[in-house]
């Protein structure tokens, strides 16, 4: 156990930003705080860094109460979204900063600092940039320098705020792989904030999904992807089609939908909501079905099918182009979801504990 966050709460004026965060981060873990803007993830990161303070709750590292320590005493490495490099210092001096401000007894000598900085420059593959100023660097290079500056103090926890937010797509992908490599070779416990689920899922050992100041779900990427615990997580992960259904004896029923592919669920009888990914819905031509195709749009490899019934329920499905040859606008279709998540109406699944609903894939495995 290394970093323990308990019941952390923070409000800005009347607005609650964090509403009771509990999270334990293990040594060497790489954690993603994932959520939309305003979910409180950056505030949480800043509290861990010691740049903001909670109104209630605890934060400790290896049993040491971090709320009693200043940012400098915690020895964390923080990489800002826009890097916050010192513009009047060269890359070398930026990286050396954390070592050069140490009190004399604790500070490596000139040669020691130069040696450590040199090794970091090599490790981060930015040796050629050592004597440049931040204004002369590209975004990706600045990102590396910022990481080098944070790593120079051998931080106990590395914190990154939207580390790839300001970069273009290609650099972003390259740096992502590179950062994973850096983490694997240093083993520094790392927490990064992102609103990009692809980024979180590709990079992190564990993803913490946040919404409105609370943790909606925390778990391994595939765990979360396959079993979203709350409607919010489901929506956030692309289960954007929501259909009202009625539960009866553990099975969902809805007019015009063929839900036989969905497994039985331990949800009490009554109204519920079915969450589906458009790609997991098959439209099947059926003259007796209440849904009609209203629009077919090609996105290249995929066809996006819009269907609605007389009651006004609209459902969007995505199918491979070749499977949609006999679909026409105006045609009646039955809709057959192959997998989906069901949540009782007005509530989430039994608390926020790791939920274990069974999906079709598993039921047939």
């Amino acid at each position, binding site marked *: 156990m290394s970093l323990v966050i308990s019941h952390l709460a923070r409000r800005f004026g009347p607005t609650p930003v964090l509403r009771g965060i509990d999270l334990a981060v293990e040594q060497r873990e790489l954690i993603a705080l994932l959520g939309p803007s305003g979910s409180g993830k950056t505030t949480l990161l800043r509290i861990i860094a010691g740049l903001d303070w909670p109104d209630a709750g605890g934060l400790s590292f290896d049993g040491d109460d971090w709320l009693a320590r200043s*940012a*400098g005493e915690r020895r964390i490495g923080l990489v*800002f979204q826009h890097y916050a490099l010192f*513009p*009047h210092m060269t890359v070398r001096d930026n990286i050396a900063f*954390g070592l050069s401000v140490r009190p004399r007894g604790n500070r490596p000598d000139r040669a020691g600092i130069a040696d450590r900085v040199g090794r970091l420059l090599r490790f981060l593959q930015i040796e050629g940039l050592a004597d440049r100023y931040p204004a002369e660097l590209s975004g990706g290079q600045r990102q590396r320098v910022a990481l080098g500056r944070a790593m*120079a103090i051998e931080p106990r926890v590395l914190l990154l705020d939207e580390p790839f937010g300001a970069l273009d797509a290609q650099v972003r992908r390259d740096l992502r792989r590179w950062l994973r490599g850096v983490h694997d070779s240093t083993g520094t416990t790392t927490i990064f904030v992102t609103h990009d689920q692809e980024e979180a899922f590709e990079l992190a050992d564990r993803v913490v999904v946040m919404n409105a100041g609370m943790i909606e779900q925390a778990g391994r990427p595939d765990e979360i992807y396959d079993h979203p615990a709350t409607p919010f997580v489901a929506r956030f992960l692309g289960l954007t089609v929501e259909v009202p259904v009625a539960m009866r004896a553990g099975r969902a029923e809805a007019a015009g939908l063929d839900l036989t592919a969905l497994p039985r669920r331990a949800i009490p009888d009554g109204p519920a909501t079915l969450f589906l990914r458009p790609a997991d819905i098959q439209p099947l031509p059926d003259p007796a079905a209440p849904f009609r195709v209203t629009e077919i749009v090609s996105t290249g490899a995929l066809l996006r099918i819009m269907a609605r019934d007389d009651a006004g329920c609209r459902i969007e499905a995505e199918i491979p182009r070749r499977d949609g040859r006999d679909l026409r606008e105006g045609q009646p279709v039955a809709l057959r979801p192959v997998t989906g998540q069901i949540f009782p109406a007005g509530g989430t699944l039994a608390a926020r504990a790791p939920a274990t609903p069974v999906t079709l894939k598993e039921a047939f495995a």
Partner: protein
Amino acid sequence: MNAMTSGSARPGRHVPLLLIALAITLTAVVVAVPLVYILWRALSEGFAVFAQNILAPDTLHAIWLTTLVAVITLPVNLAVGIAAAWLIARFTFPGRKALLTLIELPFSISPIIAGVCYLLLYGRQGLLGPALAEADVTVLFALPGIVMVTLFVTSPFVTREVLPLMQAQGSEQEQAALTLGATGWQVFRRVTLPNIRWALLYGAVLATARAVGEFGAVSVVSGAIRGQTNTLPLQVELLFNDLNTVGAFAAASTLTVIALIVLVVKTLVEGRART
């Protein structure tokens, strides 16, 4: 054909020339000629007379006093200006806007009003007059009064130059330095100060120019005692009223030379402060 029509149809061929001529004439009449004339008149009776006038004890004392006032006010302006800019840029607190307005107030108030305020507050019949007299502290018609009123007039310059820069740069660099283990002083010395150094220098130059040249406020509180509380601008007026034209012009030229030096420094600094 097309080129001809467009050439002759273009209306404003002479307008730019006219404007340039107007600008040059105006600058010459209003600024350049008077400045050159001051130097010319100051030296009109030969350099010996000029030097003699400059070295007249009263004028020499005025130069000394003006320099002293500038040297005392500068560090105070720097310290207070940085502190105020930092406070306003880095913190939100009730009364922040009001403080900003208050800091800029001296810009919009006529200096002579500042002088009169000091007179009413510290004068013998003023609010604090009796108490000061009891404690045997002289403010008015002495160096403290001159310094204080000069501070009043020059106080906005540093904050005005530094604040926008601090606001634009935000506090992330300082926070980064804190997380890297720097102490408050180290953050200021190695991160904050280097970032604002040119703006700071620019503000200091402006404040010093104003401190050297201030007339209105100082004339009220100094009492203009020859050889004692006469600053250089006051000395110029005094000599002028004495019909000592060469003396007045000599003193004025000294002031002008100081102003020109400041102007050159300002121009050099300005380019860097804006980047």
